[in-house]
């Protein structure tokens, strides 16, 4: 058995030794470099574009504009509303206008600096409130991108049954993904004349479709390959460099390389959605929740990106991981002239968890209940009805995670003044919401006598290559030496969907399992168990039947009712509890996270070491979200003012796993990529309340905000 063992990551040695080829390492002969001229205004009509000086700079090869796009100049993961290159107007600062191609990076960037654009400024819309009231429509369907509802029971009745009602407004800010490797890629014509792009990405088939639309050619004429990718967190789901590379290669028929600088990445990349969350919770004296009313207002910025996903997810997850009989959740997402917000680890749920967990602790405190007890009392479990009235039939181990934390919670001791403990719980739907999101995978017996796994699932560092191979080894009943991985090439793999929504281990994993079982059955018929050699089986069977077996999985979900949100948005959910210890220094407002215990129901831990890695990373990101990171449009330009946690900010971490097997998952597995992050900020905020008795309603709670809260407390 390989499932359940902490096998070494298959890409570890190459990365440690520096052999792994990231996109910027893929240099080719006769290669050109492209960079982007971007809007200097948040909202304007484009007047004159003067490129004369730039084009006459020696070494500049071409300057491409929207007019040079042969196909459709619109892309978008869900709604195609975003131009690759702005044509008549710009809607955010940093929006691409021109692609400048030159013989090297230095010339390309110098040329960019010589371009002059005249703008006719339009007053920018800078908040959802402005967007709602403005007569100016940023897009033809209006400024409201999306409005989703979830209704369950009778919320008025629920609040009338409550002995205590807590109501607050929470707000969060923009967050940058800040992946280690900035956006990068190389485009070229491959040996079959296809436009080929190797890039740092979380999905290849989607990128191929967008590039083909842009060029107005069939998808078969485009090939997208995932280069070794240095992190994504959702920021490499949208098209980044791929469209520009396709356009440049199409026109110039030469290899073209791109890489964003860090400053450009801050300017250009999508962000975590800032959310404004009005939250009202009612409970009986014994802590039983009776009603939840939530109103979420989000800012998706200039383009839709994943705004609709965040809008829907926050409505569906509105109650948090608790069974609430009466629910009324509204979620709206508005267009503005702020930077586009997109997918980022958790799709709005880390923001939401901050609110529902703070609410629960306030309820507990006003009823003199223990925060752990109130969670145990209300937590979703097998047989519970979620807010969308989905009955949980299996793999719902939140209570077990709470029980794993329980002994540490009951025995907690504040060692110093300013020390505090907090809990954060979460549940998270694995895979895309209420829509098909299938993955294919293939196992092929090759001439050299090995099994090749063809998968379109991108490993962005999280470890899907390793996890999928472990699943295949067991499905085949074979040792690793018999298997080769072919990953992330549209020319040789089926669409596995994006590496997002914590879905690859669960969905691609199941597809890989299916393909592996079919191959195993075939090999058994061919006499492999009796000792027949794989090369021999290949020689005998070749020509008589296909030696490539398809696996496929699409988790069973339903559409949601438009008015009530009723339905089955996800086939399965991850559950987790984090317990966090902080130390707050009241004099300076400094909060240090000392220790985190994280318990996660992952269904089945395919590779416990990789899960631990995900959770450590999630905790670090949660510390940044809670205490440090804040992107301010028009101000934040680099790491100079954007504070990611360093190793010095990291606590001691203890990871515990609950394995409540998921019947539809491969060997019972679900996903953990986003669950690792979601409860962390919430548990920090609750620990701060425990430490110094202040309520935090706005993130990040950095030294300044916390000190100001402490000052207000003193004055009260």
């Amino acid at each position: 058995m390989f499932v359940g063992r902490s096998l070494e990551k298959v890409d570890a040695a190459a990365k440690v030794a520096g052999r792994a080829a990231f996109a910027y390492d893929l240099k080719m002969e006769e290669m050109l470099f492209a960079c982007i001229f971007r809007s200097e205004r948040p909202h304007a009509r484009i007047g004159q574009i003067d490129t004369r000086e730039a084009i006459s700079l020696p070494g500049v090869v071409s300057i491409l504009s929207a007019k040079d796009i042969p196909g459709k100049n619109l892309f978008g993961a869900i709604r195609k509303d975003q131009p690759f290159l702005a044509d008549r107007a710009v809607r955010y600062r940093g929006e691409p206008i021109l692609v400048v191609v030159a013989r090297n990076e230095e010339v390309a960037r110098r040329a960019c600096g010589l371009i002059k654009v005249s703008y006719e400024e339009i007053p920018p819309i800078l908040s959802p409130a402005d967007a709602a009231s403005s007569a100016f429509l940023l897009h033809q369907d209006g400024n409201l991108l999306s409005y989703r509802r979830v209704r369950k029971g009778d919320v008025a009745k629920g609040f009338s049954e409550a002995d205590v009602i807590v109501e607050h407004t929470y707000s969060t800010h923009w967050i940058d993904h800040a992946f280690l490797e900035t956006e990068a890629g190389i485009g070229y014509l491959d040996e079959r004349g296809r436009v080929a792009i190797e890039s740092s990405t979380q999905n290849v088939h989607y990128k191929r479709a967008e590039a083909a639309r842009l060029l107005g050619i069939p998808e078969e004429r485009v090939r997208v390959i995932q280069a070794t990718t240095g992190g994504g967190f959702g920021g490499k789901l949208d098209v980044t460099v791929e469209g520009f590379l396709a356009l440049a290669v199409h026109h110039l028929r030469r290899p073209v390389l791109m890489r964003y600088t860090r400053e450009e990445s801050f300017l250009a990349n999508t962000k975590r959605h800032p959310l404004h969350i009005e939250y009202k919770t009612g409970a009986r004296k014994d802590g039983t929740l009776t009603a939840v009313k939530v109103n979420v207002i989000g800012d998706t910025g200039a383009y839709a990106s994943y705004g609709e996903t965040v809008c829907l997810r926050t409505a569906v997850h509105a109650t948090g991981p608790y069974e609430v009989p009466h629910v009324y959740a509204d979620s709206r997402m508005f267009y503005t002239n702020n930077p586009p917000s997109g997918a980022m680890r958790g799709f709005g749920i880390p923001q939401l968890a901050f609110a529902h967990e703070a609410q629960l602790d306030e309820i507990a405190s006003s009823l003199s209940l223990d925060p752990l007890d109130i969670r145990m009392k209300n937590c979703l479990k097998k047989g519970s009805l979620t807010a969308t009235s989905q009955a949980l039939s299996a793999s719902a181990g939140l209570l077990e995670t709470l029980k794993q934390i329980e002994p540490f919670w009951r025995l907690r001791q504040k060692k110093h003044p300013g020390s505090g403990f907090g809990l954060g719980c979460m549940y998270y739907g694995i895979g895309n919401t209420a829509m098909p999101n299938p993955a294919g995978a293939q196992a092929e017996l090759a001439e050299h006598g090995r099994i090749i796994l063809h998968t379109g699932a991108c490993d962005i560092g999280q470890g899907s290559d390793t996890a999928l191979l472990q699943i295949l080894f067991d499905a085949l009943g074979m040792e690793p030496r018999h298997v080769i991985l072919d990953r992330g090439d549209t020319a040789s793999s089926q669409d596995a969907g994006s590496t997002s929504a914590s879905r690859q281990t669960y969905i691609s994993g199941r597809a890989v399992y299916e393909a592996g079982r079919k191959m195993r059955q075939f090999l058994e018929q061919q006499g492999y168990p009796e000792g027949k050699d794989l090369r021999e089986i290949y020689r005998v069977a070749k020509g008589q039947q296909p030696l490539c077996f398809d696996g496929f999985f699409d988790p069973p979900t339903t559409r949601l009712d438009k008015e009530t949100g009723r339905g089955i948005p996800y086939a399965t959910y991850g559950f987790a509890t984090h317990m966090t210890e902080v130390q707050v220094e009241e004099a300076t407002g400094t909060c240090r996270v000392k220790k985190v215990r994280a318990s996660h129901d992952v269904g089945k831990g395919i590779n416990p070491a990789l899960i631990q890695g995900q959770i450590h990373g999630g905790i670090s990101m949660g510390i940044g979200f809670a205490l440090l990171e804040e992107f301010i449009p028009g101000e934040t330009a680099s790491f100079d003012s954007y504070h990611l946690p360093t190793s010095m900010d990291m606590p001691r971490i203890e990871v515990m796993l609950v394995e409540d097997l998921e019947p539809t998952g491969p060997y019972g597995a679900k996903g953990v990529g986003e669950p690792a992050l979601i409860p962390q900020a919430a548990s920090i905020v609750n620990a701060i309340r425990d430490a110094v008795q202040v309520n935090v309603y706005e993130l990040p709670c950095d030294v300044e905000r916390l000190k100001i809260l402490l000052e207000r407390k003193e004055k009260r």
Partner: protein
Amino acid sequence: MLPRFSSLKAKTKKEAVTALAEGEEVTLVAGGTDLLVRMKRGESHHHLIDITSIEELQGVVAEGSRIRIGAATTHSRVSTDPLIRESARSLGEAASGIGSPQIRNMGTIGGNLANASPCAESIAPLLVHDALLTIESAEGERVEALAQFITAPYRTTLTGREMLSLIRIERLEGYREGYRRVAKRAAWAVSRLGIAWAIKEAEDRFLDVRLAVGSCTPRPFRPRSAEALLNGRRREKWLVEEAVKLCLEEIRQISGERPSFIYKLPVIRDLLRTILGGG
């Protein structure tokens, strides 16, 4: 991308000051951890002279009641030097919190002063130690107190022909001394505030109180009125409160009201209460 420039590694002080005297648009590099960032932003410096290899500008040595610190001594060296640990503890603590280990290995104390950022970590402890700076040029040398050397944020009295070569500070024996920085994260962040102190006391009586506040006013400063109030008096709660009040008033006199003061002044108040209260 960096603009084009020429560079020279000077081996002696003479070589450096001669190049300054004879060249046009010459910039000294004393670690370059700030200069590099500015050049990446497009600031042009055509001729760079790296002075970090000049032996005469290195090291920490005792000189009677003073300590001599070569201007090109790295923050790493300052933060670990035994003499500084013993007789200028606040300076060592301040240097140990600058940037990251990589930055401390490159950046120098002289570079920190010549850059004259309001948040420069080494200024406050050097003010506490009444630092005197030696400034050299082809014409000769001059000595200036640190408080006069920095004239405004990022401005000093250095002319384009001069080089800061030596920092001399007072050894403080029998003082309770320290440095406290406040920053957004545990490491690798520009300080939002820094307070240096050296306090000599006997039987609950303040004999010599030296305080300096950095990252708050355009130039780090010593709150002289608060120091004067405390010196010679017995430590009592009202006295500490009065001194804190004087210090905050002095800050407001220097800077007027600033948006950041809603955070900074309460922090200074609370830190000073602890420092002066003997904690």
